[in-house]
């Protein structure tokens, strides 16, 4: 859907022959299998096109065991979009009922969900003020609403602290990112329309998202899936945070002493060019911020990408552990990342070793608590 037929065929032709981005594929590096490499997937898709291979469960396992973090396209001088090619293959598998069982179960459960009902009550019970008349909507997204409510509360507190009125959707619809990434385009279409209609009903003019994958979905895919976002500005919360700090709306009494490093979630660094604002915000809270070797557009995955954890949670954790190892090499005691989904993934791979993992929004809320 997102590659036209010419792009799809050219991408297969380019990838099936080329090993130049193998080093950038986290799954290929960990599994050590050609079939998990970009070239291997290219060869498989080519063989399927040529009738040399059949779509089957083995192909499905391979296409869903990918990290799809955008690093391959970034690494590729020709900018071939291998990740989108994989999503296209996933959509064919989903349409033909060949997706792995774990993926089917996940999609079925996601389809049955009606939206996050309790977000306003959750914020109010935490003492966060919501303004139902506000044109700015703070959006949690499915993952944050289910797994990272602390981050959502922290974001609400920062809004309050900066004196910016905001609203939360009564029954917050899913962004549809998970459907899109898993190749369920029908599910993504329905979610996109539902979300845009809910935002219109709420009179939203500015949408601020917390989950980086939702930000990516809403800024790059929602309208292409039929959602109408005209007149709605979509922002990632770190832009607001950096603005508030610049304008003095938020004051930081004391910066953290410990060495801190920053992890770029792929949805921000490679799909939204959102790299400077979070760093600017972080530097306001921490005095000693160092970069990992792989950072910015070439940052390694945190393991949360590509919905890999659904099929292979252990592999996703290994990727997260690898990223933690890279953070450790900097000597940092704290690894900060803005996306709650990324933070959760990294935390799941951490043990008692340093660095500690922190989500920027919680880090910021804690630092401004007494201001």
């Amino acid at each position, binding site marked *: 859907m997102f590659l036209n037929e010419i792009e799809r065929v050219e991408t297969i*032709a*380019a990838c*099936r*022959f*080329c*090993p*130049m*981005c*193998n*080093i*950038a594929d986290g799954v290929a*590096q960990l599994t*050590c*299998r*050609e*079939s998990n*490499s970009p*070239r*291997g997937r290219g*060869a*498989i898709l*080519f*063989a399927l096109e*040529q*009738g*040399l*291979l*059949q779509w*089957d469960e*083995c*192909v499905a396992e*391979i296409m869903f065991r990918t990290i799809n973090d955008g690093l391959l396209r970034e*690494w*590729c*001088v*020709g900018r*071939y979009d291998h990740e989108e090619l994989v999503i296209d293959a996933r959509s064919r598998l989903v349409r033909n009922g060949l997706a792995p069982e774990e993926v089917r179960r996940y999609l079925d459960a996601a389809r049955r969900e009606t939206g996050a009902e309790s977000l306003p009550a959750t914020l109010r019970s935490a003492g966060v003020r919501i303004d139902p008349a506000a044109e700015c909507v703070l959006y949690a997204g499915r993952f944050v609403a289910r797994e990272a409510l602390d981050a959502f509360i922290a974001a609400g507190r920062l809004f309050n602290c900066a004196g910016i009125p905001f609203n939360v959707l009564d029954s917050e619809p899913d962004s549809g990112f998970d459907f899109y990434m898993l190749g369920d385009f029908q599910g993504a279409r329905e979610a996109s329309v539902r979300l845009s209609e809910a935002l219109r009903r709420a009179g939203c003019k500015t949408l601020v998202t917390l989950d980086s994958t939702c930000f990516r979905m809403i800024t790059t895919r929602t309208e292409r899936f039929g959602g109408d976002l005209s007149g709605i500005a979509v922002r990632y919360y770190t832009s607001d945070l950096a603005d508030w700090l610049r304008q003095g709306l938020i004051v930081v009494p004391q910066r953290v002493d410990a060495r801190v490093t920053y992890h770029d979630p792929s949805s921000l660094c490679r799909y939204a060019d959102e790299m400077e604002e979070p760093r600017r915000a972080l530097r306001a809270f921490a005095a000693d911020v160092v970069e990992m*070797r792989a950072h910015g557009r070439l940052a390694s995955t945190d393991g949360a990408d590509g919905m890999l954890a659904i099929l292979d949670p252990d592999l996703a954790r290994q990727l997260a552990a690898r990223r933690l190892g890279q953070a450790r*090499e900097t000597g940092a005691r704290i690894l900060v990342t803005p996306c709650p989904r990324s933070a959760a993934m990294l935390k799941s791979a951490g043990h008692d070793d340093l660095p500690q993992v922190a989500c920027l929004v919680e880090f910021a809320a804690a630092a401004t608590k007494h201001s």
Partner: protein
Amino acid sequence: MKGDLIRDIVRTELIDIVGRDNVSVQHAERMTYAFDYYLVPQMWADRGRKPSLPDFIVHPKNTGEVSRIVRLANRHNIPVIPYGGGTGTQGGTVPLFGGIVLDLKKMNRIVRIDEESLTVTAEAGVHGQTLEWECNKLGLTLAHYPASQFGATIGGYIAARGSGTLSTKYGKAEDMVLSIEAVLPNGEAVRTLPVPNHACGPGLLPLFVGSEGTLGVITEVTMRLDPIPQERCFRAYLFSDLRNGLEAGRRIMTKRLRPCAIRLYDPNSTHRLLRHVLGVSRDGAYMVVGADGDADGVEREMRLIDDICKSLEAEDLGREPGEHWWKHRYDFYFPPFTLKLPQLFGTVESTTTFDRIYELYLAKKKCIEEGYSDWSADYIAHFSHWFPWGVMIYDRFIINKPPQDPHEAIELHASIWGDAARCSIAHGGTLNDHHGIGFKLGWLMPEQYGAAWPVMQMIKDQLDPAGIMNPGKLGFRRK
């Protein structure tokens, strides 16, 4: 492999050695091991023909497992194809006769970096780029920068006798390797002497370097390291005539200067390739030359190089295009800049001494452009790995509209290769400089070695009497 029962028996024996997760017989998995970077198998499949698939993919985790797998293969008389990154261009890992592909990438431990002696010991499956990154953390570098660096393994570096962009100073893979551990075709693991320079007989190390998995499986490698240079700089020159460029390179090397790179493009490459990829549009012979080391040394080296180039009427294009070339040196190998199907192409590179290189260039250009004018064959060349005694010519033929019929296309491909290789040999050159032999060039090995070829074959027969190791490669007789 014939027969479902024996296939299943072998599969269970392999599982016993490496575990279920490390053996695959799935069709899709096997398909991904049917190709390397060699054009012909790709072209074959491109025209709808079934590729040669391996029967088993096996991922050993240590030398002991490799030994047991090779013994099993001997017992059942099954081919074993050692596989690293699969980035070779000669078909060296293509499983022509099925069998066991031994993917070594799980043997990816860096055993030791010796900061005192500047050496690194690592298992064969370590990625070249990963090793480089790990060495860089300690201020060291392997300084081996082949175009395959992002995919190739160090075992592959040695097995294919490869070369990197800075080989002119740092040497080819064969110059960097100190010792190896290898599993012989009988399953026995052996080590070569700990250092390559000695007087303890002829030395086993050279036997395995470039053996492409036909004489055993390289499982561990010790290589030389260098400190990361304080400074590295590049400069570009334009010669009105290729001969002057070659002469400049010769003088640089025979005066025993130590540039890290000299890359001289022939007029056709200068005109086409550089404009296409680097946005440089000039006629003549374009040369990029670089030096690295401490700042004073680099400054002195570059001044002497500059004197030589200017004495041969080169136009100094300055540092910027040279640095641009270094920064974008791998761009040529990414699609869409690389050649691609349905084009028919081949890198027919060779190496010879300075006194013969220009004649070799002219002869090969004529051989391809005139010999295959019916196919509008194009010929491009550059000279990029320089030795104290000669230079490598990296030359290519390109046919934009080859025959659609796969048999005709393969026949044409082989014909050009045969003519080009014989032309190289006739002018004192070699079949190949740094890509290896594989099955692409194996058939020409007896011509390359002449009366010495039976010696090579005898070595193969002694070490691998059953002929299980990577059959069909390097020109050895198939059992």
